[in-house]
């Protein structure tokens, strides 16, 4: 966990007071909506179909148990008793009143949580691997650098009015859980040939109506130079990014139109002029940030305790253990993913009672720490393996032990037309129906790793482009239709999926997905060939034929 210093606490509290005054002036008619809109957006407040939506940042996906309890409190006191975890390590409350927002912000500020820059044309919440600091094989904890970038980019005067929003993600593992290749800047921490730790920098990734996979702009940037290099990218983008057309304003369009070589040359020129400036990071600065992260006091424990061996005789526990529990850096400990994808439930939602209970379980079993992943699940990062049976029993009672992590029902979905003012179609009912169709755990295991991502419009908040199966809602003559893509992926081999054919109506989506999955099971070369590997090997034609032959 990172402990905020006095400067951080003052900043957050002053921001609450400032926003309280802005809300008061808006409600008194002293600010027009045009004047107020940018101010509320910079505090994470959107207007959705039925109400305001309040988006709160969870920096680098790490929460303490008091912070999660405070989110439960906000859900219960100011909203309708639940929250929605998003694909960018935020939580959203869907029913909050403008008049209540300053109080909600003040309550969150008491535990160091805020909503700054969760919207607006600025650098958004810097995200990272939800297993940061505990993943085996990790080069180093990427949250140190995420925190440095958070401090650097918060209320940065030069970059508060960029051409468009700007998203940065960091990973330090070989397997990319942070989807860095679909971010404006993706940072991969690695070691160079000399054994020095630094960053591979990718730029121009993104989804939305024009998806691009990020390109490597610099294979290695030393840690001391990372802020100046990121600033150079931001400066080039701020200068040349389009402001005349919202659909062409993201950095991905600039990189695409200039070409990566010319864009990189512009960045290099800027960087050479500024790299040895005040942004050069002394090792003391980095170490100061590092020292403000506290780590658990691990015990020496066995990886195969008797409790675990005995409990594994229960097939339900054994299934969950195999699916939702991952190895940890430390012997005797494990990383536990808590599925927020129950059969028939809205993906990523958690009730206030569930949040409180998870906070209690984190205190009891995981050093008071909770993680949030971009796949819209939670994780307890450091659970002693001897405690896994006891933890599972309690998670099961809470509905948080569905053994479907990374399987066909672990669906990413945006809020869709049930909530969102931008959406063309609903997303959640499609996800719910699919979880019912594939509710059989044996079938889900037989299918293996398969990510279905659903977006209710072309803005792609549900990351449909990079779903193994992507579902995109479009409106046709007032009716909900859905385009299906296959073969996308968001990991270190990120690729945009391929459209298989004409859009299908709402009522047929689940049937189509079943057809695609049945085709895969018949076509795969061997049981461990993943869905995306089969698509890569055979292309989309066999799937297209299966779906459209009888439609």
């Amino acid at each position: 966990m990172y402990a905020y210093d006095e400067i951080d606490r003052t900043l957050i509290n002053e921001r609450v007071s400032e926003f309280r005054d802005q809300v008061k002036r808006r409600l008194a008619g002293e600010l027009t909506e045009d004047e107020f809109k940018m101010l509320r957006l910079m505090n994470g407040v959107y207007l959705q179909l039925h109400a305001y939506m309040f988006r709160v940042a969870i920096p680098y996906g790490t929460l303490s148990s008091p912070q999660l309890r405070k989110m439960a409190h906000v859900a219960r006191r100011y909203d309708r008793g639940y929250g929605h975890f998003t694909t960018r390590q935020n939580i959203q409350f869907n029913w909050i009143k403008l008049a209540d927002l300053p109080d909600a912000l003040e309550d969150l500020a008491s535990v160091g949580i805020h909503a700054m820059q969760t919207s607006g044309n600025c650098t958004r919440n810097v995200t990272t691997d939800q297993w940061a600091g505990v993943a085996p094989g990790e080069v180093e904890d990427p949250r140190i650098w995420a925190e440095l970038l958070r401090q650097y980019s918060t209320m940065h005067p030069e970059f508060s009015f960029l051409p468009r929003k700007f998203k940065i993600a960091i990973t330090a593992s070989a397997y990319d859980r942070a989807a860095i290749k679909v971010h404006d800047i993706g940072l991969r921490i690695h070691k160079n040939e000399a054994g020095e730790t630094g960053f591979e920098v990718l730029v121009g990734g993104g989804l939305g109506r024009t998806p691009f996979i990020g390109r490597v702009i610099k294979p290695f940037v030393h840690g001391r130079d990372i802020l100046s290099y990121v600033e150079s990218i931001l400066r080039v983008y701020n200068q040349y990014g389009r402001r005349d057309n919202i659909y062409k304003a993201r950095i991905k369009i600039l990189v695409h139109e200039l070409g990566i070589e010319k864009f990189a040359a512009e960045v290099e020129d800027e960087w050479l002029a500024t790299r040895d400036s005040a942004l050069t990071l002394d090792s003391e600065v980095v170490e100061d940030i590092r020292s403000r992260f506290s780590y658990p006091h691990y015990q020496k424990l066995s990886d195969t305790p008797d409790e675990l061996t005995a409990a594994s005789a229960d097939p339900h526990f054994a299934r969950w253990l195999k699916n939702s529990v991952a190895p940890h850096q430390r012997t005797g400990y494990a990383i536990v993913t808590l599925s927020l994808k129950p059969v028939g439930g809205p993906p990523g939602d958690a009730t206030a009672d569930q949040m409180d209970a998870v906070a209690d379980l984190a205190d009891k079993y995981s050093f008071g720490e909770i993680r949030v992943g971009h796949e819209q699940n939670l994780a307890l990062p450091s659970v002693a393996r001897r405690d896994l049976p006891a933890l599972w029993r309690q998670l099961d009672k809470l509905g948080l032990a569905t053994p479907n992590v990374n399987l066909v029902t672990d669906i990413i979905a945006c809020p869709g037309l049930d909530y969102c003012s931008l959406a063309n179609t609903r997303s959640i009912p499609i996800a719910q129906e699919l979880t019912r169709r594939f509710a059989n755990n044996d079938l889900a295991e037989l299918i293996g790793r398969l990510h279905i991502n659903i977006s209710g419009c072309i803005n792609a908040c549900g990351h449909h482009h990079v779903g193994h199966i992507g579902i995109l809602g479009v409106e046709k003559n007032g009716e909900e239709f859905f385009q299906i893509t296959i073969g996308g992926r968001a990991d270190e081999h990120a690729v945009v999926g391929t459209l298989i054919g004409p859009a299908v109506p709402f009522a047929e989506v689940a049937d189509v997905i079943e057809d695609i999955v049945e085709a895969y099971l018949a076509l795969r070369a061997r049981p461990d060939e993943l869905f995306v590997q089969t698509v890569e090997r055979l292309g989309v034609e066999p799937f297209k034929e299966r779906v459209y032959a009888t439609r």
Partner: protein
Amino acid sequence: MTSPLQQKIKITGPSVVTANRTWDGVVIYRDAHNGWTTDLAQAAIVRTADDARALLAESTADDVGAIGPYIAPVAVNDNGTVEPGNLREQIRRKGVTIDLPASA
């Protein structure tokens, strides 16, 4: 950006002006008495582009009470009841089409 009042208004049937209430975001409809109502049945219904433009102008002038007024289609049934004219407006009126998460 073009003001909504400067945009060409084209309606194809009965319509209302709808917005969100400023202090809590609730869905509201412009009524026939220069005010707002949460009840679609009480909304002012317009059938011509000129009437729609006038109702929208009146609604937009109330920047304190409402956010983002716009013209939305409705269907008027034979018995005089009014229904939203599309799925988006149905959801805005009746709420989400799913069960909200609830604590056990």
